[in-house]
């Protein structure tokens, strides 16, 4: 108000100029208030619905092999041979793409205890992705135990980092809302699922107290944050649901060491059997079936495998898995 035209101190009435200026400033203020009201009026601002989980598969011809399994004392060589039999990593990862590698790093256990994916398997996959031209390779998991202890003592942190991957765990992972059709309306998932173009699932074959076995589909628990602890109420359905929701570019099953009882955490070395095998596949149900046979289980006896096949997520027919034999 102070910078309005000054007026004659003996004049009781403001000048016409001053009146116009004052009316204009009132009008501008009214327009600002009205404009703000129009802009904000009933503008819904509730949080956006959870985004759909992307499909990370690459299109493959029907003649292409759906899976290949290799045996031998060197886990890295097993990985190389199995992936090569599917057409090499170049068939799955294109130059410049970002790849998320999802191992099982759930537990504060040493590699010998076979509760987490073997670090040599993961490191070899990182190298293959890098060689195929991946711009960014991330290894990430939401551990059950303390994430720092789990990532470090599993050997995954060092192995993946020295192979050239970015390792994200614990507080460095960002969670966003998600929902799992039919199982849970409220969940959180790591945001890497939306920023990476390709996702490789690298589970270890283990016994599980509730579902008897855990391989690849249950490994998706590790991309879920709050809300995942509900899924055990109907484990077979929920695991199949996870398989239907997360469709990876590639599944690489680590059966180097297999935990036969007291899973999924294990601990005792007497529960661990050395199998020295790795399988890679584009059919998650086939990989699941191959994995449980390494424990000596019949795939058709497991509810989550039959449920997944019934949903059309893949086939459990083991003749579809190319056996590359021992190196």
């Amino acid at each position, binding site marked *: 108000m102070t910078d309005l035209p000054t007026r004659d101190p003996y004049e009781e009435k403001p000048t016409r100029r001053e009146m116009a200026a004052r009316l204009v400033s009132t009008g501008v203020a009214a327009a600002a208030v009205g404009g703000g009201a129009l802009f904000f009026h009933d503008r819904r601002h*509730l*949080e956006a619905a959870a985004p759909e989980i992307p499909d990370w598969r690459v299109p493959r011809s029907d003649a292409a092999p759906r899976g290949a399994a290799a045996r031998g004392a060197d886990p890295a060589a097993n990985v190389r041979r199995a992936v090569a039999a599917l057409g090499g990593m170049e068939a799955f990862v294109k130059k410049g793409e970002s790849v998320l590698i999802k191992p099982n790093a759930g537990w504060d256990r040493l590699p010998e205890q076979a509760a987490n994916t073997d670090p040599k398997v993961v490191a070899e996959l990182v190298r293959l992705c890098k060689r195929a031209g991946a711009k960014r390779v991330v290894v990430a998991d939401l551990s059950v135990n303390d994430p720092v202890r789990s990532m470090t003592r599993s050997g995954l942190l060092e192995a993946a980092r020295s192979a050239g991957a970015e390792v994200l765990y614990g507080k460095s992972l960002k969670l966003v809302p998600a929902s799992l059709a039919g199982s849970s*309306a409220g969940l959180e998932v790591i945001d890497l699922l939306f920023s990476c173009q390709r996702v490789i699932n690298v589970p270890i074959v283990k016994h599980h107290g509730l579902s008897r076995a855990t391989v690849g589909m249950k490994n998706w628990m590790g991309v879920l944050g709050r809300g995942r602890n509900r899924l055990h109420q109907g484990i077979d359905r929920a695991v199949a649901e996870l398989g239907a929701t997360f469709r990876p570019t590639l599944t690489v099953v680590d059966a180097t060491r297999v935990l036969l009882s007291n899973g999924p955490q294990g601990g005792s070395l007497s529960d661990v059997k050395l199998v020295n095998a790795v399988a890679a596949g584009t059919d998650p149900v086939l990989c699941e079936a191959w994995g449980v046979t390494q424990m000596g289980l019949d795939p058709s006896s497991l509810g989550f495998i039959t449920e997944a096949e019934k949903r059309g997520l893949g086939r459990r027919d083991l003749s579809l898995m190319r056996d590359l034999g021992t190196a």
Partner: protein
Amino acid sequence: MTWTIRIRILYQAFFLGLFVWFLARLSAGDERQFPYALFHHADPLSAGALPLGAGTLPGALLWGIALILVTLVLGRAFCGWICPLGTLQQLASWFLSPRTKRESLVANRWRPWFALKTYLLVALLVGAVFGGLQMGLLDPLSLLARGLSSGLWPLLPGGRAVPAGWLSAVLLLAIIIASRYLPRLFCRALCPLGAFLGLFARFSIFRIGRGENACSDCRLCSFACQGADEPLGSHRVAECHVCLNCLPRCPEGALSYSFLPALATPPTRPDLSRRALVGTALSAAVIAPVLRVSGGGRDAARPGLIRPPGALGEKEFLSRCVKCALCQQTCPTGALQPAIGEAGVEGFWTPVVVPRRGGCEFACTRCGEVCPTGAIEPLAAARKTGYDGRPPVRIGTGFIDRGRCLPWAMQIPCIVCEEVCPTDPKAIWFDEVEEPLRGAAGTAGTVRLKHPRIEPSRCVGCGLCENKCPVGEEAAVRVTSIGETRDPLNRMLLGT
């Protein structure tokens, strides 16, 4: 007393009466659809602050915008003519104070610390931007409604106890009594709504004007000035309540309330220091997030925080709730109570369901109907109960404490929880068992008992079971918020 003053007093009496009458009708459970939230819909501070955090101006708050536009034309007429808390203070200062004319002149002088309200306003607005809408603590309409509803209403015959109400009552009474010492102390020094309207009153077209040639500097105009805005000399239009008490006081007839009068010389000292304003804003920007992590409803571990049916998710809810207590006033069972610590520091005085005080009546939707800002969404009864075919609106889940339950722990037959369970089919059902009874040595004979069990997928968390449970102070069946519709992460069952 001139006719302008008489008309103003009529306005004030009408609005104060209407305000209290609305609260009385809410409390009585009147079926008629009066605009109970009218005052809160027309709250300019809600209209100004809510969009900052919530990003939306809920429908009926447009009335608050209308009041801002009125202020642009008439000045802060709301404060002098409508605000019921202002009226109560004015009454108190007139009725309680033994001031002489001379003392009145001193009491109605402007003081630099009256600028406090503007700093408070800045802090509350900045806090709202950072996600904590706390203006309801001091907003005069919320403050009065809360003080009457949860503070003084319990005193009436048949009134219900409100444990957190005493503080609301003390705050309200302190404000009213303070006017005995300094008229409208709250309006002048603390009211964020008045400070907010003051921002717009600067542009007002109608205002107090003084014919300088006629004025003899006698200062009688300040005798009954409500806003302490000093109509003599440098008139502070942002402080003026447009009570018009000054006009008839002037022996020379030099004052007028008119269209675009000549402007008074502006006050010599600035009312606000820029440094202090920036400091206030920065402090609020730090304190608001601190309050957010105080362990309330945003926390995953939130024992005891049951929100009313239709309440938005906690973040959205807190960005809209103005703590006006209308939902609590209208709740027919007394289930809705002002939160003390259940919702954290930031949720102080927001509504929570306390089943021990009242259950949430199955088909009752009154809290959502009366909520002025949509923090509790209005629900149709068919929607709330699930009779429209979709899942019912749940506010929590009940759990049986087998260690306290009469049939479970003491072999005493009881069926009250099952009896009052309102869902269809009932969430509480009986497992009939035959148990051995205590005898002179060991057991002797048996008794048939009905053990109540809860089917969690049927339970809506209404708390009627907890409310009616005959196991006194701490019921043998209790509700917690898990499974509530409003938060998809606060669930326990697969498939929900």
